[in-house]
């Protein structure tokens, strides 16, 4: 078991590909079909392309606040790829790659960041919760999903995401503790991207690793190289398999780096040095995985260029649709607070509707 081999208290971190895409230890390479390897890579690439574009749109004033993902693609896609369609995804707010792999239409994701609630009205078959803005509060939802899974006797697993900053919230601990007590099929993934906005990981906790937080809840924990998609996949797959077999939750810390700003309102130059960013750029998860695929003859540079171009077009056309979506209707902001609008809401709605119909607003 990887969780036994890589004890965070002994300073061990699971890492399979080095930064040049070479396999360090063949025994650790997870079994993944070629087709799936390519799907994983493509999703990482789409994530990268969509992310860069979204940032551009925002800088052009065409998009609202947006939370970039660059550098974290391996963490995002490697983890979700180890789950199945029947499994649940409980996001924090920075897992674009995971959402895309899970099947959320890019258009919806853009719609959300564009400021429209309909972006969270996912298709029926996408078992994913909406983005959760209050840090770490989503983790208890994930545990509740798993409690229901257990009661119903089903075999679905829940993947729940949280940032390094999120591990300081009380709810993080409550959720992991519940998961342990109720033995829920939950895999917690800490995207440790080294920062909570401006606050570096080392000020977030005195613990050397975030993975070791699992010990306080009696559940297994493991730290993995979050820029190594194979390592992330391997650790998650093991955890998912255990969860599915009824062996309970796991905590995975993926060590990665946010290459971009926290959000488009953030200026990282205030709180970190460019050299640090440059160092991490060398560990770019995409480059590494691409080299691995090329070495395996599953991919080449030409394909890559073409694929990128195709994705750029897809992204552009998706965003165009979003831009054409316009504002939200009055009805829609009233309609969903309850299954049926209350008399008071009807009154407020009608009054205001009549008012603006006079052309006022």
């Amino acid at each position, binding site marked *: 078991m990887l969780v036994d081999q890589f004890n965070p208290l002994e300073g061990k971190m699971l890492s399979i590909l080095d930064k040049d895409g070479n396999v360090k230890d063949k025994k650790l390479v997870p079994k993944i079909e070629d087709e799936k390897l390519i799907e994983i890579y493509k999703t990482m690439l789409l994530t990268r392309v969509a992310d860069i574009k979204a940032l551009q749109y925002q800088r052009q004033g065409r998009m609202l606040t947006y939370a970039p993902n660059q550098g974290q693609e391996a963490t995002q896609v490697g983890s979700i790829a180890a789950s199945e369609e029947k499994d649940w995804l409980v996001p924090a707010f920075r897992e674009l790659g995971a959402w895309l792999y899970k099947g959320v239409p890019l258009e919806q994701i853009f719609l959300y960041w564009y400021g429209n609630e309909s972006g969270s009205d996912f298709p029926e078959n996408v078992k994913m919760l909406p983005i959760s803005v*209050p840090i770490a509060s989503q983790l208890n939802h994930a545990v*509740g999903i798993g409690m229901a899974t257990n009661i119903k006797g089903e075999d679905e697993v829940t993947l729940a995401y949280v940032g390094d900053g999120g591990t300081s919230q009380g709810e993080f601990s409550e959720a992991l503790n519940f998961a342990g007590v109720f033995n829920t099929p939950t895999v917690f993934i800490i995207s440790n991207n080294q920062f909570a906005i401006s606050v570096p990981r080392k000020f977030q906790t005195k613990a050397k690793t975030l993975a070791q937080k699992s010990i306080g809840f009696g559940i297994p924990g493991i730290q993995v190289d979050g820029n190594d998609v194979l390592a992330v996949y391997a650790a998650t797959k093991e955890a998912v398999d255990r969860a599915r077999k009824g062996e309970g939750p796991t905590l995975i810390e993926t060590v990665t780096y946010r290459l971009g700003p926290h959000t488009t309102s953030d200026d990282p130059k205030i709180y970190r040095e460019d050299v640090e960013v440059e160092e991490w750029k060398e560990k770019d998860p995409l480059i590494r995985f691409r080299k691995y695929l090329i070495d395996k003859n599953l991919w080449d540079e030409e394909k890559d260029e073409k694929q990128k171009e195709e994705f750029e077009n897809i992204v552009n056309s998706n965003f165009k649709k979003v831009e054409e979506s316009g504002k939200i209707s009055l009805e829609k902001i009233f309609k969903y607070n309850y299954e049926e609008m209350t008399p008071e809401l009807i009154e407020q709605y009608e009054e205001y509707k009549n008012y603006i119909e006079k052309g006022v607003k």
Partner: protein
Amino acid sequence: MPLLNNISAINHALDKEMERDKSVVVYGEDVGFEGGVFRATAGLQKKHGVDRCFDTPLAESGIVGSAVGMAVNGMKPVVEMQFSGFVLPAMNQILGHVARYRNRTRGRYNLPMVIRMPYGGGVRALEHHSESMEDIFAQTPGLKVVIPSTPYDTKGLLLAAIRDPDPVIFLEPKRIYRAFKQDVPEEDYTLPIGKAKIVQEGEDITVVVWGALVREAQKAIKEIEDEGISVELIDLRTISPLDKETIIESVQKTGRFLVVHEAFKSFGPGAELISTVNEGAFLYLEAPPTRLTGFDITIPLPKGEHHFIIEPKQIADKIREIVSF
């Protein structure tokens, strides 16, 4: 027809609904094995299994947060906060998620769940065991807030709350948990959420109350019966959504209004009722709509509680005052 008090009516309703609907699960601190510190869930674990009625670790946010996930995944959780004073650690979940999930997802996910909690003062308890926090929940869009005052209502409203597709905060006036018994029909029935009950009709003044104060108001009315003051007494039953229609109609008839509640006065629930009356019956008013409430202080420990608790005499005197305005 079983003779039940309020706490046994809760137990009875939970039992019936767990039998009827296998997706109903009941949990919280001490809720399972022991059956709750007030015995609201006594016997349910034994009868319906440890899967469906169980204890949790001591963490209110965990309880409510996990209930969100449960509800998303097909269950109907009925969770207990041991006292309403201990709901505070769960506020982020309740105000930030429970109330908003339907709207956030444009209806993709709704949360059929109930958060039960004993509430209110008058039981000579420690700090944080006597709070009246209905206003915080009532002001939160997306929540419904229900407060029963009799065993009959308790059963009908709790069943309605569990079956409601929206999240319901179910506040149980603990002071009257065992205060009196009532015949409660064995068979299934619900009472509508969002509808007040006219407890008694009258002509001179409308008095609105809920929870434990319904009985106190009834005693007050008895006290002034002989004085020729005819009171229309309304038990709100649901704080949100507020049954404005019933209230306004009544005040349009009586021209006078009194709301009595135990929660603090300023920015309290009474203010909304006074505003409602103003907006709906201003031209009918013969006296300023009035509130008789708890003081704007932390509810005192038992040796000072007697000052805080509103007695029938105070209600009677306030009615007299308004009627002779």
